[in-house]
């Protein structure tokens, strides 16, 4: 779509005594943005209006939302674009930000107002003009009417050169061209639009296996949608963040500025998500998270353009806490790696587990040998052990726990430790292990059975929740684009569509919380061995129904 960016320093005259911009100034800047956009199309108002006998493009309706204050000395970036063009009016949308910090979003609906007598005299009258009498100044010219919605290819072909700015043809084109031009340049791309989706995950290194599952699930989703998302051709751009936040941010910048993607999705790790999400949303693009759910994004950093198809990090341990509380287990020995997610897990567990926690032990990130900790557990002889050990750490802990003979003596409960990636590597060492999760391969709903079945057929192994979340992410985007009939510029309606989450999710139907985190069920799963010898996780019971995360209250968004 047509877009134009300009930069304006905030001058002393724009601010009130407190140094904060006086709000009406934003409307002047919107007007400036609109004017410069026209100029960028080779139609500066002072020159275009007399040439096409246009009095002006007065504002019929305007509004603005103020997100954060701009101050004296800031340099504002004003991004203006034409949202749509109708018979008599067209809508401009603006965003004003300081660097990457959004200050305000606004819109103007403007009308064409032509000068009546002069126009009739020398303007060639298109066949279907059907003039409806004199257009009083201020009223709109009935004959200035391209056929709605798109423009006839012939007329478009004639004025297309204008877009490339060749001066010679301008004088011969009539006033109709002015309207036709805008409509054509706006409408045309929408028709042949390809939706670009950037997907950031980890593809190299040991954790690359998770990224592989996510990428496979996205590709499977595209197969199920006939390689079209929301009816539009789709271009996927994958990025390998190498588990580094600054690489993740650089990928996001590349996708936003170089590839100009419409959606960014994926991201496994909380620290990468905290670097990527704000970058994407402040650039006015949708961020559809498919794994990491740090509490900051569920709380004060929630954003209307951020949705996740996974969960908030604390919800899964909360479910385990509730289950163990309901079973009135006490004397629990809690363990996790010594990093932010580890602490989140244990605090989430204790939010619902009120009985006695014998000990809270944090081990070194990436530790291999847990024999010392296992001896401590045996000495403490607790009634149950609750752990969080993702990836390689989990495999090592489970093996060593079983090898130390504790598997039979002290029941082990865990979160994000036993999954379809680690299970094949530990097998019987995890038999009988309890985990809580929002999803499981054996969840009985039509979408999930299709996903699990097709994934197994195409990739020859069981899918894992990282994949299910990514599959849902694509489906969510598809539903949103379908709801706005392919008009990717209509973010307002896409947000509304996404909030309804009316797509067939692998977890079954769910609703969104105010902070765009799912309100969903959580189940207790157990590692069992199927008759055919394969180890799998099976749902035992539902722990939470429509469980909300604990941070949504902090989110300022209300809808």
């Amino acid at each position, binding site marked *: 779509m047509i877009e134009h960016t300009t930069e304006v320093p905030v001058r002393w005259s724009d601010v009130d005594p407190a140094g904060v911009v006086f709000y009406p100034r934003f409307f002047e800047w919107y007007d400036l943005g609109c004017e410069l956009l026209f100029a960028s199309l080779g139609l500066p108002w002072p020159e275009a209006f007399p040439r096409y006998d246009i009095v002006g493009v007065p504002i019929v309706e305007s509004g603005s939302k103020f997100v954060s204050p701009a101050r004296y000395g800031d340099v504002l970036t004003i991004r203006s674009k034409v949202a749509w063009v109708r018979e008599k009016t067209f809508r401009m949308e603006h965003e004003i930000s300081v660097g990457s910090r959004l200050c305000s979003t606004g819109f103007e609906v403007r009308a064409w107002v032509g000068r009546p007598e002069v126009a009739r005299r020398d303007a060639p009258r298109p066949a279907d003009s059907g003039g409806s009498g004199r257009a009083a100044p201020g009223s709109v010219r009935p004959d200035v009417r391209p056929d709605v919605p798109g423009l006839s290819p012939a007329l478009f072909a004639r004025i297309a050169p204008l877009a490339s700015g060749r001066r010679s043809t301008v004088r011969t084109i009539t006033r109709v061209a002015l309207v036709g031009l805008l409509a054509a340049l706006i409408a045309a791309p929408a028709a042949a639009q390809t939706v670009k989706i950037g997907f950031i995950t980890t593809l190299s290194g040991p954790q690359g296996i998770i990224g592989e599952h996510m990428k496979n699930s996205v590709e499977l989703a595209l197969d199920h949608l006939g390689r079209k998302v929301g009816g539009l051709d789709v271009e996927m751009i994958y990025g390998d963040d190498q588990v580094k936040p600054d690489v993740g941010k650089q990928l996001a910048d590349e996708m936003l500025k170089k590839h100009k993607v419409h959606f960014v999705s994926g991201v496994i790790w909380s620290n990468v998500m905290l670097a990527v999400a704000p970058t994407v949303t402040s650039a006015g693009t949708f961020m559809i998270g498919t794994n990491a759910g740090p509490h900051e994004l569920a709380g004060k950093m929630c954003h209307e353009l951020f949705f996740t198809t996974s969960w908030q990090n604390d919800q899964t341990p909360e479910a385990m806490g509730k289950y163990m509380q309901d079973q009135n287990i006490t004397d629990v020995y809690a363990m996790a790696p*010594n990093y932010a997610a580890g602490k989140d897990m244990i605090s989430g567990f204790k939010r619902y587990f009120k009985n006695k926690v014998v000990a809270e032990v944090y081990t070194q990130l990436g530790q291999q*040998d847990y024999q*010392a900790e296992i001896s*401590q557990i045996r*000495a403490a002889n607790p009634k149950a052990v609750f752990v969080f050990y993702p990836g390689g750490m989990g*495999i090592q802990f489970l093996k060593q726990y079983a090898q*130390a003979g504790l598997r039979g003596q002290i029941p082990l409960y865990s979160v994000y430790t036993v999954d379809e*990636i*680690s299970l094949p*590597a530990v097998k019987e060492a995890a038999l009988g292990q309890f985990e809580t999760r929002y999803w499981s391969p054996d969840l009985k709903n039509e979408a999930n059975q299709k996903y699990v079945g097709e994934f197994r057929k195409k990739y020859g192994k069981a899918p894992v929740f990282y994949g299910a979340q990514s599959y849902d992410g694509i489906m969510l985007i598809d539903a949103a684009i379908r709801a706005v009939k392919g008009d990717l510029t209509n973010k307002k309606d896409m947000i509304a569509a996404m909030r309804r989450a009316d797509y067939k999710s692998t977890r079954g139907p769910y609703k969104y919380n105010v902070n765009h985190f799912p309100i969903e069920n959580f189940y207790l799963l157990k590692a069992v061995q199927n008759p055919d010898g394969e180890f799998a996780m099976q749902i035992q019971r539902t722990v939470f129904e429509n469980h909300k995360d604990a941070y949504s209250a902090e989110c300022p968004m209300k809808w």
Partner: protein
Amino acid sequence: MTVTVALVLEQTLNGLQYGVMLFLMAAGLTLVFGIMNFVNLAHGSLYMVGAYLATAFAAWSGSFVLGAALALPATLLVGIVVEVVALRTLYERDHLDQVLATFGLILFFNELIAIIWGRAAIYTSLPPFLGGHIRVLPGVPYPAYRAGIILVGVTVAVLLWVLVTRTRLGMRIRAGASNRTMVSALGVNIRLLYTLVFGLGAALAGLAGAMAGPIYSVQPGMGEAILIQVFVVIVIGGIGSIRGAMVGAIVVGMADTLGRAFLKPMLATVISPPAADKAGPALASMLIYLLMAAVLFFRPEGLFPARGRS
């Protein structure tokens, strides 16, 4: 949590076992380092190759011992091929170039393994006959497999000691450690000696990998997780000295294990328990680095510097 004598003894045993594990890795590294003055970051990759090969052979042959036995010569072969192809020309170069070249090898091996076996960790299990527990202490069952590791580690130490001190090859190795140029001047086919020593180092790493397979996670990149700790061991022990590697391994093994087990309770007696809860884990993970800095401060060449002032 009461700190009973049995617990202290058990943790000491754990420390010993972890030390022996580190020694298996450190022996090969310090040998290559001492003889050829060669910094081999890819030693961790040979450890990984050993673990993968042992698991594959064990699955194919059905017996863990056979698997490990086959993995040794295979890793030896891989080591020799790598030495001849890439590393042979680097002995004269300075440590910086060796670090860069061997880091390139790490990247290569990790991706190669990921391509052949896939990125996910592969399944390994304890050998059935070592699956049980032995009553080392009353009331404290100790995993038989880990006792096995101690046994293997000690045997390897003794064999290495015999090889280095009692055999002709060992004499050349010790001479090479103290003065490389002199050894080559005396007509020893130094090129063959280097290849043999590198192969021996690779075999030792392969053995360590085979032993580690069942208890650690066998996945691409497993070598790097232990690499830094092994370097700490050989630096504390004194580069090039087998004795140094043994002592260094036990010291680091003990310090790391006992630190993780008792540092927090000990700290809690000195500072407030919540502060100890916070400081304990962080300090425990820094412990071996503090240890190394302290040792180097007092003995800049490690505890048993094998290298003469060449």
